[in-house]
């Protein structure tokens, strides 16, 4: 059978409809207004250089006694965890009675070039934890890390186990050299010293380009063709643009921290080998003796499940649990199903551990 059942008339009509949508959609696109993200009420409670620590306003009468600090990645912006009303990990946690704090790293500039992992983990994270402890008259709190922020949380918990009551990691890379880790493969032969010495801070656009290169045809072509179908649906168009904003709202990476992260974690796989040294102290995951809840996404192409699940073998905790979400790296936070599954799972686990 001939593999095309498209008649000239059908094809012409299809193209006509497409172009009609395109032309008509220009107007609706110009009328979308500003794209905002971040829906939950919050207060800035602490600042440290460009970092802002936010405490989210409660949505229940009585909050859980122990606050949870969300440590986001340096890549992209943390409002992904609170993207919109019906897609918000933060809101889900608040609804479950959690007392949620979040670190917003801000946008590093040239003056931040020499910020290293020691500054981020033993500096910023530690001071945020201390601030929350003092505010709540607690000696330790709960930590929730997202992606690279999860790796930071693991390092912090290993270096300061006495400050972490319970540790939650989500889509967190631990083994950076699993066979299915495409980012890692690309990073192996990168002359990161030359790159950082030359560029200083690493442009966020460069990282975006790297992520897009993983599915270039779909992410730079088909996606936008599909967008034409949304032009006459204002709400869906706005959601699309909101996600688009998040994807390309990429802070530059502080040069020294980037150098250390690529070399020690991606190229040497030091976290698994116990060879990462931060602030003069070796990061030994066996020091993580507090309860650990490891959430990963089964279809994650940036942090493959195997890269996360290895944590079970490495931590010193006797109380280790996993939660597998059937979805991707971003879907675990913003998909409709994730809202029903992920925040309750995290909150229930935390509540069960006081």
């Amino acid at each position, binding site marked *: *059978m*001939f*593999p095309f*059942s*498209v*008649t*000239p*008339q059908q*094809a*012409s*009509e*299809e*193209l*006509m409809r*497409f*172009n009609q949508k*395109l*032309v*008509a959609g*220009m*107007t609706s*696109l*110009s009328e*979308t207004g*500003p*794209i905002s993200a971040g829906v939950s009420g919050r207060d800035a409670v602490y600042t440290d250089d460009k970092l802002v620590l936010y405490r989210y306003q409660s949505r229940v009468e009585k909050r859980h006694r122990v606050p949870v600090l969300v440590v986001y990645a340096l890549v992209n912006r943390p409002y992904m965890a609170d993207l919109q009303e019906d897609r918000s990990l933060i809101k889900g946690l608040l609804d479950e009675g959690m007392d949620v704090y979040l670190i917003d790293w801000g946008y590093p500039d*040239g*003056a931040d*070039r*020499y*910020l290293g992992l020691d500054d981020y983990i033993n*500096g910023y994270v530690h001071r945020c934890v201390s601030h929350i402890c003092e505010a709540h008259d607690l000696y330790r709190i709960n930590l929730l890390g997202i992606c690279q922020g999860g790796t930071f949380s693991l390092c912090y918990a290993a270096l300061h186990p006495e400050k972490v009551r319970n540790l939650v990691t989500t889509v967190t890379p631990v083994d950076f050299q699993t066979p299915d880790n*495409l980012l890692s*493969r*690309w990073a*192996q*032969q*990168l*002359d990161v010293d*030359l*790159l950082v*010495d*030359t*560029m*200083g801070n690493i442009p966020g*656009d460069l990282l975006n380009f790297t992520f*897009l290169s993983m*599915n*270039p*045809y779909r992410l*730079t*072509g*088909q996606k*936008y*063709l599909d*967008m*034409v179908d949304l032009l006459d649906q204002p709400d869906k168009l706005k959601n*699309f643009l909101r996600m*688009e904003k998040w994807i*390309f709202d990429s802070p530059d990476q502080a040069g020294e921290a980037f150098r250390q992260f690529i070399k020690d974690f991606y190229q040497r796989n030091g976290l698994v080998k116990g060879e990462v040294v931060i602030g003069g102290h070796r990061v030994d995951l066996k020091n993580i003796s507090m309860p650990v809840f490891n959430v990963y996404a089964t279809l994650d192409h940036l942090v493959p499940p195997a890269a996360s699940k290895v944590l079970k073998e490495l931590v010193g905790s006797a109380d280790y649990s996993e939660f597998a979400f059937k979805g991707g790296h971003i879907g675990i936070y913003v998909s409709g199903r994730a809202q029903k599954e992920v925040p309750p799972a995290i909150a229930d686990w935390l509540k069960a551990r006081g």
Partner: protein
Amino acid sequence: MANDTFSVDWMQGWTDLQRKIWNEWVAMAGEQLHANRGFPGIPGVENAAQWPMQWLQQVMEAAGSGNTAAPWSVPWFQQGAGAGPLDDWMRSFGIYSPETTPEKSALANMMAAASGFTRLSGEIFRALQKMGEGVQDGSEWTRSLDQAIQQAKSLFTGQDGSKAAMDPMSAWGQPLQMWMGMFKDQPLFSGGILQAMAGQQQSGQWQQAAGGEWLQKLLAMPGLGLTREKQERMQAGMRDLMVYQEAFQSFQTLSNQVNLRALDLLHKRLLERGATNKPVESMRDLYVLWVDCCEEVNAEFVRGPTFQEANSRMVNALVRVRHHSQTMMDELMGALNLPTRRELNSSHRQVQELKRRVRALEEEIHTLRTQDHSAELRSIRDDLDRLDVRNLRQELADMKSVLEVARSSSTDHADKKQTTTARARVAAREKTGSAPAVAAAKRGE
């Protein structure tokens, strides 16, 4: 095989329907555009509203003339249009400004995707027309399909292969654009130079154009005289550029293979669809199938060591060029007595180091301030308790009474006075020296 779809006079049907549809479309689009968008008084885009109409006009003319290439040359979709018609058109709709916002960048991407889709549709139509002609001549459609795929492949291997390879749907254009973007602030080695160099597809073409062997020899010559060091640095920079060009060409050649292999896979998938009676039912369907093929081939390609090596070589070579140009720029700035990047880096490093020290001191002070002194306090309280202040007072009172007794009896018993006083002193000494002992004595212990 059955030529069922082409059992009717496809060509005639195509032409008639196209003319009819375009006529209706012209009327519809023209009405909408003229009614809503006038673009009056915008310099350079006075006729922007006419562009869609011009395209439709081209379509009409092409449909009549049989020239099927022209209809797809939409003004704002043209490759290389760059900041020209598309930007003007966007500006005319009031959604263009230098700042990038999600909707604006999304619009640009959407237009690029739409452009790709439309161009692809044009190619498909042309292919279908040729297949129709072939079928009319009695050929099998499979052979026509094969020819169509080969024709598509020629886009990536012909004279303009580089352009097509770099922009099948704007995807492969990005490595170049992205990395070139790094050079925007580098006037000595501007993106334009690199773009021109990278744009030379035939291996060694640039070197030949620039003098080939002569250039190689020149770069190998030792520097002489006062500017010896500068000469050497310039030579090193040029060598870096040549390494980059070679690395870029290797990368581009590999990237091109993805497009070619994706077309082979598309060919295979189409034959499978034909064999399983699951024909492509729309242009979009075909587009998605092509994207799937591209992604499938690309996924395999980028996981392989060949790509990783080529990609790393290209990136590292380009960064090396920039590093060199940055060093030269610093020299120039230094010569002009202006701040250099090196100096700024030193300052930033020192500031960061100072901040770390300040943080450490702050933390120490905070620790000292909030230290737990309760143990020390307990110790002091114990000491105070041991002093037994109450008994010391009693002891003092006793001594006073002893003294008074002694004073009153001094006149009567002058001889006894010294003895009594001495006893009292002894008693006082004993009491003062061991208050608890006195207290215990008082308690009768």
